[in-house]
């Protein structure tokens, strides 16, 4: 599983749509102080479900919406879309003992979106039948998050509005989970050695 594409609109210092494509290996983000690099990292943790405004350097979650500049008005919402590829999932196969011939769209049955009728075709990159009527597939998934100034907030998987819980389950199954050590924010590395003994324990407990 890996990240494939990130799109930001109205998020922090990105009022206009901005687009990054990630390959395997190493992607580096560079630029002068204050130009928006850490904001890109924030966008990734935010779309993956970050709930604390404080860890995004804000006082309230509304602080992630573009607040305007000298020449620009604030935007009414922030939206970030993250496309993942190689996401594991399970599909009932046509040769299955249960005899169903559901299409790969049934992958969504495992994690029902709020509107089950509106399934989109999904890219199925690999299928292995396991002889029990199910196959493992790798597919692309797009996770989106929107926040409006009203405070209304939405999560979407492949364009369907879902609950935060559905996003968290999807990430848990694809091996992402809530992993404090897979993101090292700017300045955080200096705090690790000066952390209290019980705080360090917590790092290990998260991985246990």
């Amino acid at each position, binding site marked *: 599983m890996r*990240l494939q594409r990130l799109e930001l609109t109205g998020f922090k*210092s990105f009022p206009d749509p901005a687009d990054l494509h990630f390959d395997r290996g*190493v992607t*580096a*983000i560079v630029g002068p102080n204050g130009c928006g690099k*850490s904001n890109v990292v924030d966008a990734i943790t935010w779309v993956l479900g970050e709930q604390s405004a404080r860890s995004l350097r804000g006082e309230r979650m509304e602080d992630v919406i573009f607040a305007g500049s000298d020449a620009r008005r604030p935007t009414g919402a922030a939206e970030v879309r993250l496309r993942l590829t190689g996401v594991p999932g399970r599909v009932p196969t046509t040769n299955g003992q249960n005899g169903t011939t559901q299409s790969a769209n049934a992958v969504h049955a495992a994690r029902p979106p709020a509107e089950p009728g509106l399934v989109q075709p999904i890219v199925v990159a690999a299928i292995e039948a396991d002889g029990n009527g199910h196959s493992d597939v790798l597919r692309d998934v797009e996770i989106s998050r929107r926040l409006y100034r009203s405070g209304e907030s939405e999560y979407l998987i492949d364009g369907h509005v879902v609950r935060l819980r559905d996003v968290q389950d999807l990430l848990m199954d694809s091996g992402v989970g809530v992993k404090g050590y897979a993101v090292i924010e*700017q300045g955080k590395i200096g705090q*690790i050695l000066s952390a209290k003994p019980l705080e360090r324990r917590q790092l290990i*407990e998260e991985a246990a």
Partner: protein
Amino acid sequence: TRERFHEAFVAVNRNFEETFRTLFGGGRAGLVLIDEENVLESGIDIVAQPPGKRLQNVQLLSGGEKALSAMALMFGIFSYRPSPFCLLDEIDAPLDDANIGRFIEMLRGMQERTQFILVTHNRKTMEIADRLYGVTMEEPGVSKLISLRLN
């Protein structure tokens, strides 16, 4: 549970020691349960001894040595429970050229199985990127992304 924590502790400790030696080119390091009788609740101390130096309180280490030790611990935990991707924001900032070289070598070894997204100001770190994005703010307050070519 006590077993799961203990298993994680032992594994992370071994990884930490190993990663520390890779990043420092030697030396010794480890994690210590402050209260060995109480595995379920004990806090953890860090021991770190750069090559050729005498073992002292980690607080006496230099700024760069502390950063490198912290990096060894984070990557030690990471190797125990790998994530498909890893986001690193300017963690190379306090390091000198030699240490950046060892840090980059370690990333090279890990990037087969892990996708890295790094923010950096350092030219040597930029050189190992497969893809490079520049962020600019020509219009004040408005960020813009540009895909940069390598080489």
